[in-house]
Each structure stands twice: as C-alpha cells, then as structure tokens.
C-alpha cells in the first residue's frame, strides 16, 4: 500500500564501506528523486530521473551513483563512505506536467545512514 517505499530504514556502517539504498514507487509516476536531509534538517536535491533518464545531478560526488532499472525504481549506491555522508536520504516521486494538480512530490519515510 505504501506509495514510496525505501529500504533499509536504518543503515550503520564503517567509513570506507559501500552501501546501497533501494526505492520503489507504486504511483505510476514518471519522475523520481533522491534528496539528502542533514543533521540540521536541511533538504537538498541530489538526483532526479524521468523515465529512467538522469535529469538532475546536483554536483554530488562521484561516489554517489543512482541507478534506475525502470521508472518505478530508483536506487542509490554510495562508494567509499565518509563521515559527512551521515544523513537521512529521502526518495520521492512526482508526475510531471503543467496541470495545476501536478507538481506534488511524494516522499518515502527516509533511510537514516550513519557512518562511523
């Protein structure tokens, strides 16, 4: 029933490790996003995909690699984790268009990553 679901919800790992976060949406939306929320709750866009095509890459380090196998899934792989990567990562989806009803982003519940 969950519209946008992310796994895992919590991730604790050591510096230098590689980890992945998975996201799936069942809303039939064409566009998916990854946002990062830091310890001060600041939300910043990282990536956006539309129909499996990368649209936005917001100067994120190359260690972060998103992958969209199909338009319902957007995964995030992070290599060589650093302390500063500790944050809550949110996946979201939207249905693009110019209709007054479009524009809403539907967020998942977040994946809290802690790098030790």
């Amino acid at each position, binding site marked *: 029933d969950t519209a*946008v679901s992310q796994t895992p919800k919590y991730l604790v790992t050591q510096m230098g490790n590689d980890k992945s976060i998975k996201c799936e949406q069942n809303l039939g939306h*064409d*566009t998916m*996003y990854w946002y990062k929320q830091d310890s*001060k*709750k*600041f*939300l*910043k*866009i990282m990536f*956006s995909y*539309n129909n499996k095509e990368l*649209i*936005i890459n917001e100067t994120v380090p190359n260690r972060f690699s998103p992958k969209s196998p199909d338009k319902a899934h957007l995964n995030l792989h992070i290599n060589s984790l650093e302390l500063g990567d500790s944050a809550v990562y*949110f996946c*979201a989806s*939207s249905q*693009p*268009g*110019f209709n*007054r009803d*479009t*524009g*809403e*982003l539907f*967020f*998942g*519940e*977040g994946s809290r990553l802690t790098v030790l």
Partner: protein
Amino acid sequence: QQQVKQSPQSLIVQKGGISIINCAYENTAFDYFPWYQQFPGKGPALLIAIRPDVSEKKEGRFTISFNKSAKQFSLHIMDSQPGDSATYFCAASIFGGATNKLIFGTGTLLAVQP
C-alpha cells in the same frame, strides 16, 4: 539566487493561536511555491501550494499569502493544534517540465503547546 530563506527557525505557539512562517526567494523564474509538513521519522508531505497568479490560497486552517513584488510568501496556521507540531518547509521551483526541482527553505520547527 537558488536560495529560499525561511524564518523563524523555531516557533512556540499556544493552542488556538496563529502560527506564521515566512519565506523569501530571489529567483524571479520560480513560479510554484509549496509548503511541506514533516513529522519526526517521516518524509515531508505536501500541505498546500500556490502559483503566483493568486495572492492567497486557503485550505482549511492553512493559508498561503503570496507577495510577488516583494518575493515573499508565508504560511498561516489558524487555530493551531498540538497535532500541528512538526517541521514546516517552504519551497520553490519552476513549474512544469520533466521534473519538479524543489528548492527547500531551512525549515521551521513548530511546537503547539496545549
């Protein structure tokens, strides 16, 4: 120019009072201004949004006031309730196209005291 400035950082309001959160933007190309509400442990959820062709939009106890010339917009929560206690984010984007790149404000932590 991509920033959205939000104030205050935190707000304490008595039950039944009015909560007011303000935002300002620089980029005049922005034409979609939503407010998101986030409860602890949850993702942000859309509360209410406005396009610049109107100066005010009301949905229940929540009202957005928009001042295009001043490049400011605000959220008013009337008759604030303890259940409204959450973090509120304003945002802005250029509407339409293949993606909706929301630029978020820094958030306001609202506590409504019973």
